C-alpha cells in the first residue's frame, strides 16, 4: 500500500478543495473548457521543468512510495497528476475567495 503514498497526497489535495465548488459555488469544475485550456499550457510548462530536473537528477522518487507507472519515458504518473490537481486546487481556492469577497478580478464584463 505504501506505493500509493504520493497518490494519497494528491487525493488529499483534491478532496481538500472540491468542496469549494459545491459549498462556495467556486464554478471552476463546471467551466470545463476554460479549465482545460488553462491546464494545457501550465501542464506543458511544468512537464518541461520536470523533464530537465529528472534527466539531470535534481530530484527523484522513492520506487516503493510511487506506483512506478512512467509516462513518455521519464514522467511518473504522480507528477502529471500533480500538475493537474494543484492548479485545480489553486483555482478553486481563488474562486472561493472571490465568491466570499465579491471583489473584481478583471473578467466580469
Amino acid at each position, binding site marked *: 500500500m505504501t506505493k500509493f503514498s504520493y497518490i494519497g497526497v494528491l487525493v488529499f489535495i483534491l478532496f481538500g478543495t472540491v468542496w469549494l465548488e459545491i459549498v462556495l459555488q467556486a464554478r471552476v469544475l463546471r467551466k470545463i*473548457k476554460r479549465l482545460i485550456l488553462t491546464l494545457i499550457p501550465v501542464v506543458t510548462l511544468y512537464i518541461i521543468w520536470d523533464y530537465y*530536473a529528472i534527466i*539531470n537528477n*535534481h530530484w527523484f522518487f522513492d520506487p516503493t512510495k510511487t506506483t512506478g507507472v512512467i509516462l513518455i519515458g521519464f514522467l511518473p504518473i504522480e507528477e502529471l497528476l500533480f500538475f493537474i490537481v494543484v492548479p485545480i486546487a*489553486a483555482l478553486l481556492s*481563488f474562486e472561493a475567495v472571490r*465568491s*466570499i*469577497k465579491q471583489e473584481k478580478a478583471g473578467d466580469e464584463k
Partner: protein
Amino acid sequence: MTYIQIGIIYCLLAFVTDFYILKTKVLKLRMFWLSYSIVLFFQFITNGVLTRFLIVRYNDFAIIGGDYTTKTPPLIGDGRLFYAPVEDVFFGFSMILFTVSIWIWLGRRNIQKLPISGPPPRWWPKGHWYGTKK
C-alpha cells in the same frame, strides 16, 4: 542550472506573463494574495509529507541545502522549510501565478466567463477577519 535558478526564471516568466503578455495583473489583486496564502499553508503541509517521508528526494548538487536523500530532512534550516527545499516555494508560486493569470485571461476572452463564482451559502459567516468589502 540549479533548482533555484530555474525557480527564479519561472517566477519571472510568470510575472511577465501576468503583467505584460496577458496583462491580467492578478498580482495586484488582494484576492490573489489571500488565496495564495491559503494555498501556501497547505503546500507546506502536503509538500512536507512528500519530503519528510522521502517520497520525493533531492540531490544536494541541485539545491541550496545539504544531502537528505537517505535521511530525514530538518523541519527548518539547511535550505529546508517545513522539510521541503525552500526552492519549492518558487516552484509553487510560479505555477499558481501562471494558472490564475491564464484562467482570468480566458475569462476576459469570453471563454466560460459567466456565471462568476458565488454566492456563498446564507449560513456562511460574514464580516469576519477576512472581511467583505461593502
